[in-house]
């Protein structure tokens, strides 16, 4: 018997490999590879509510300079590589959530429109795969007004993607991004782009957008929680039914591999970075103490997990896939 050694573990050497001769299968064409991923949706119950995590896809891209503003690029790249990301790159997934409260079908954040980004914009397709009709969505709740959260309210040709839904935006974010004064003071091209995008996506449908306040329900059992810093109006949500709870954190952190492990790091997208750090620590200290289930927009699909303290930061423990509801 071959002893278990590293060498033998790796040896696929033809020399060592006496290929099994007795292939009895009849001669026929090999099955072609599928080349397609499984549909990206995942269901779970929170009390009486049925929730569906929907993958909008994600982006993998070379880490730009300044991706993490307050540490060196070498340090940021080392963290990405330690988290098994492709060398020199970061991987950022997008995961909206559907909540069926029994009386309302609610979508929290939208991802991108189909085709807008080569490896994203899958929300519509995965909703369909999950058997959820876009026309049946009653309420679309936006956590904040960054493109990966809002652009999917429209289809590729600019029509409403959820034609029967009320759209709800956090009042402070609306005030911030729709202010011409703020836009004129935009500090860099990224911020200028965000101001322009907010207007492009939401201005012509402003009449259909309800502004919501923190501390109130945006739908039955779904309460808006102030989590500002990432943007001035950035909002998390507590979804509660019976004794079940999940915290939909939106962007309290961007990707957990970097910013949950290192909560003091400033991702380029944080508008008010110091406030974002304070919010992050408060949110995760609470979530860790309560062992709260968290849905994270930028967690890897199905983007659900628990957060525990680890050194000076935190660690995400993904939930185990439940194969039957």
């Amino acid at each position, binding site marked *: *018997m071959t002893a*278990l050694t590293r060498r*033998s*573990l790796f*040896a*696929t050497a033809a020399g060592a*490999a*006496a*290929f*099994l001769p*007795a*292939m*009895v*299968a009849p001669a026929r064409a*090999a*099955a072609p*590879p*599928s*080349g397609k*991923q*499984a*549909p990206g*949706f*995942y*269901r779970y119950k929170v009390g009486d509510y*049925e929730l569906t995590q929907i*993958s909008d*896809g994600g982006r993998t891209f070379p880490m730009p300079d300044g991706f993490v503003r307050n540490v060196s690029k070498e340090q940021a790249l080392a963290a990405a590589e330690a988290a098994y990301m492709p060398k020199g790159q970061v991987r950022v*997934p997008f995961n909206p959530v559907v909540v069926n*409260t*029994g009386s309302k079908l609610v979508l929290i954040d939208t991802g991108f429109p189909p085709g807008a980004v080569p*490896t*994203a914009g*899958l929300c519509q397709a995965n909703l369909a795969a*999950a*058997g959820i*009709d876009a026309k049946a969505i*009653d*309420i679309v709740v936006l956590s904040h007004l960054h493109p990966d959260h809002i652009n999917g309210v429209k289809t590729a040709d600019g029509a409403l993607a959820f034609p029967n839904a*009320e759209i*709800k935006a956090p009042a402070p974010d609306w005030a911030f991004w729709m202010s011409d004064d703020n836009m004129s003071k935009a500090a860099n091209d990224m911020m200028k782009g965000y101001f322009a995008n907010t207007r492009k996506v939401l201005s012509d449908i402003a009449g259909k957008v309800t502004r919501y306040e*923190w*501390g*109130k*329900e945006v*739908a039955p059992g779904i309460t808006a*929680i*102030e989590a500002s810093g990432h943007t001035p109006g950035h909002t998390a949500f*507590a979804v509660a039914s019976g004794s079940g*709870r999940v915290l939909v954190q939106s962007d309290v952190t961007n990707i957990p591999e970097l910013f949950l492990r290192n909560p003091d790091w400033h991702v380029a997208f944080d508008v008010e970075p110091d406030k974002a750090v304070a919010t992050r620590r408060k949110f995760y200290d*609470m979530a860790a103490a*309560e062992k709260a289930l968290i849905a994270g927009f930028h967690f*890897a*699909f199905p983007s659900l997990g628990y957060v525990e303290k680890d050194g000076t930061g935190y660690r995400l*423990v993904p*939930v185990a*896939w439940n*194969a*039957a*509801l």
Partner: protein
Amino acid sequence: MIKLSRRDVMTGTVALTAGTVLAATTTSPVAAAAPPAGRQAPGFYRYKVGSIEITVVTDGVNKFKFGDNHVTNKNREEVNAALAATYYEKDMMTTPYNPVVVNTGSKLVVIDTGTSEANFARSKGAAGQFHVNLAAAGIDRNAIDLVVISHFHGDHINGLLTPDNKLAFPNAEILVPAAEWKYFMDDGEMSRAPAGRMQEVFTNLRRVFDALGRKVTRYDPGTEVAPGITAVATPGHTPGHSSHVVSSGSAKVYIQADVTHVPFLFVRHPDWHAMYDQDGAMAEQTRRKVYDMLAAERMMVQGFHYPFPGLAYVEKAGSGYREIPVPWDPTI
């Protein structure tokens, strides 16, 4: 304005005390709410290893109250503490089953088969899902060329049979570890096996292989069982327990079978002996060798009893290891 506080967030009482339910202003047309789906997504996941396409096809999950000897060298309190630390329910064992399908380009290969289609009804759909998810993945069981078995425990071999005891993969050759066959088909070994679970293992595997007329091909460690799939001896869990390295170009994945049982107990604590480990000490030795190699090489492991999709990296952590799930890739 409501501030973020533990109490508010966890109880969800913010709105109940603060009042206004904005949903009352909803403008959507009056309609019956969409009914809940009540069904999980199909359980399959694809990834590439070089030019080879692998599909993890889950057989589902068995959740049960575990017995006092579930971990033979740890007591219930210690097991419960480990479960609590990993967000699992006390006194309950959650065991996923994840066979894989490997498309090498020339052969379509199933590695391990799950708990069987017959178990689908018995478990009320919780397990025995392999055939359902295989179909959802668009894989025709008639197109399977080879079925490679890692070892002879029921959750790995029972899926070889349909409910009417026919080969579930009618055009496939069945490959089994030669050492496993030699040990378990030996009537002397069977007669000496302890009553209870071990006797049942012997009885069950005879039931399965007898239904197939004992028509199998035996393989040895170090041989390629299919193009790009090399068998490795990883004994201890059973005498002939085998793992499989799938390799294409510079890419590799280690299909470990049961080198560890559930990772939240036995990857974290490699010195813990699952009751399923026939030779606990040897299984532990194998486990440490394999996991030291996986950690050193940053090599992906595919675990039969890892939570779906069961693909992870491994790191050393304290006296044990920690599995880092490979993030779901929405596109391949």
